[in-house]
C-alpha cells in the first residue's frame, strides 16, 4: 500500500468497531482526510492521546480502499486549554463543524487550514468563559471563511445595482440595508426596494467591515458593543448557511447552553 505524510488538524472522531476510530482532519495542503486509527481506543495503543480533537499532528498514512490507515502520529500542538473551558470547546467545535460540512475530500484550500489554525490558537488563548472574545473569533472565522472560499459579501458596492457605497462607512445614524440573497450591502435607492433585508446600524456595519479588514490581533483589542456583535454574528451565520448550504445552527445550541 502506498504511504504518504500529512500535517493536519483533527476535526472529528467517530468510534469504529471494538477499538478503532475514524478520524476526520484538515491538512495543511487544504484537503479533508478521513482515516482509520486501528486500536486507538485501547489504553495501550501508541495513538492514545495523539489523535484527540483539535490536535495539530504529523501523520504517516497508508492509502486504503475507502479510508486511509494511520500508521504513525506525532503531536505538534494540542491546544491543551480548549477542553479546560466548555465555552472554548463549543466555539472550536462550531468552527470544525463549518469545515466538515462545507469541504469535501478532493477540495483544496490551504488558506482555510491557516485560518483554522489561527482561530483554534486564538480560542486556546482566550480567558475562561470570555464569551464576547469567543464570539469575535467565530465572527472573524466566518468572515474569513467566506473570503477564502470566494463567497465574501459585497461591502464596498451595492450588491443589487453595483453602485459604490463608499460613503456608507462615514454615515451618522442612518441604517444600512444588507441583503443575504443579493450577497451584500444595499445603496439608499435599492434598500427600500429589496424585501428581505437586514437593517444594520452604523456600529454593526463598521464591525462587519472590520471583520474583513483587520487582523485577529487587532480585532481582539477593539471594543465592540454586545448588540452589534450578536447582530453581525447572526448575519454572518445566516449568510454562510444561505450561500454554502451547510446547516450550522450554532445560535440554537448557544441558546441551549445559556449564552
Amino acid at each position, binding site marked *: 500500500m502506498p504511504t504518504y505524510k500529512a500535517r493536519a488538524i483533527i476535526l*472529528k*472522531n467517530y468510534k469504529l*468497531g*471494538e477499538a478503532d476510530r475514524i478520524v476526520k482532519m484538515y491538512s495543511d495542503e487544504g484537503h479533508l482526510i478521513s482515516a482509520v486509527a486501528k486500536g486507538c481506543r485501547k*489504553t*495501550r495503543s*501508541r495513538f*492514545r*492521546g*495523539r489523535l*484527540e*480533537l*483539535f490536535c495539530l499532528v504529523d501523520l504517516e498514512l497508508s492509502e486504503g480502499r475507502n479510508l486511509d490507515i494511520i500508521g504513525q502520529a506525532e*503531536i505538534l500542538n*494540542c491546544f*491543551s486549554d*480548549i*477542553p*479546560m*473551558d*466548555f465555552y*472554548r*470547546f*463549543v466555539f472550536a*467545535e*462550531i468552527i*470544525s*463543524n463549518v469545515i*466538515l460540512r462545507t469541504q469535501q475530500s478532493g477540495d483544496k484550500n490551504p488558506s482555510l487550514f491557516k485560518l483554522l489554525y489561527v482561530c483554534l490558537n486564538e480560542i486556546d488563548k482566550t480567558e475562561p468563559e470570555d464569551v464576547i472574545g469567543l464570539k469575535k473569533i467565530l465572527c472573524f472565522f466566518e468572515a474569513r471563511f467566506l473570503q477564502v472560499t470566494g463567497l465574501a459579501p459585497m461591502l464596498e458596492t451595492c450588491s443589487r445595482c453595483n453602485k459604490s457605497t463608499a460613503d456608507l462607512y462615514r454615515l451618522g445614524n442612518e441604517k444600512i440595508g444588507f441583503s443575504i440573497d443579493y450577497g451584500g450591502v444595499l445603496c439608499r435607492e435599492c434598500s427600500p426596494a429589496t424585501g428581505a433585508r437586514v437593517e444594520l446600524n452604523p456600529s454593526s456595519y463598521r464591525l462587519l467591515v472590520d471583520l474583513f479588514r483587520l487582523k485577529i490581533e487587532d480585532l481582539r483589542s477593539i471594543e465592540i458593543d454586545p448588540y452589534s456583535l450578536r447582530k453581525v454574528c447572526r448575519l454572518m451565520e445566516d449568510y454562510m448557511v444561505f450561500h454554502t448550504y451547510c446547516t450550522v*445552527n*450554532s445560535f*440554537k*445550541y448557544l441558546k*441551549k*447552553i445559556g449564552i
Partner: protein
Amino acid sequence: MPLYIKSVEKLINEFRKLPSIGPKSARRIVYYLLKQTPEQVNNFARSLIEMKEKVRFCRLCRNISEGDICHICGDTSRDHKKVCVVEDVGDVVLIEKTGRYRGVYHVLRGLLSPIEDIGPEELGIPLLMERVRKEKVDEVIIALNPTVEGESTAMFIKKMLSPLGVRTTMLASGLPVGGDLEYADEITIGRAITDRREI
C-alpha cells in the same frame, strides 16, 4: 434468482443492523439459529422481547432498570452522598467491577456536542443538580473519558455544580499500569507529572 428465501433474508438484514455485525457474521448467526431446536430459538426471541419490554431508565440516575429506580439507587447500604457521573450504562459495570466504589451513579448517556446538538437537557444535567440539592450530596466524581469531549463535558458539569457548593472530583489520569514511558504521549506524561502523588 434470489440468494436466500424471504424469511432468512429478512433475519440476516435485521442482524446486519447490529453494531460490529457485517453481512458474513449476520449470515453465520442465522445459519446457527437454523440449526437450533425450536425451543432454543423461542427462548432467544423471548429474551429479546422481554428485555425490551421490561428495561427502562431509572428516574433518579438514568441507569437501566426493571423498576422505577435501579438496583443501585434502591440499595440503602450504598453511600448516597457520593455520585459518580459516567458517560454510558456500560461504564457503571466497569466501575462496579473494581469493587472500590460504593456510592451511586448518574448516567449521562452521551456527551455534550454542538455538532450533534446534544445539550445539558439531553444528558439529564438538571436531574443531577436536583439530586445533589435534594439529597445533600457531598461529592460528585466525574468519571468521563479523558478525551476533549469528555473533559469539556466535565468542565460544564463542574461549572453547573459550583453554586451548590458540592465537592467535584475527576478520575486521575496518567500512565497505565504496565505501560512504558517511552510510548506515552506528551499529554499523558504531562498529566502524570501534574497529578503526581506522594509515596
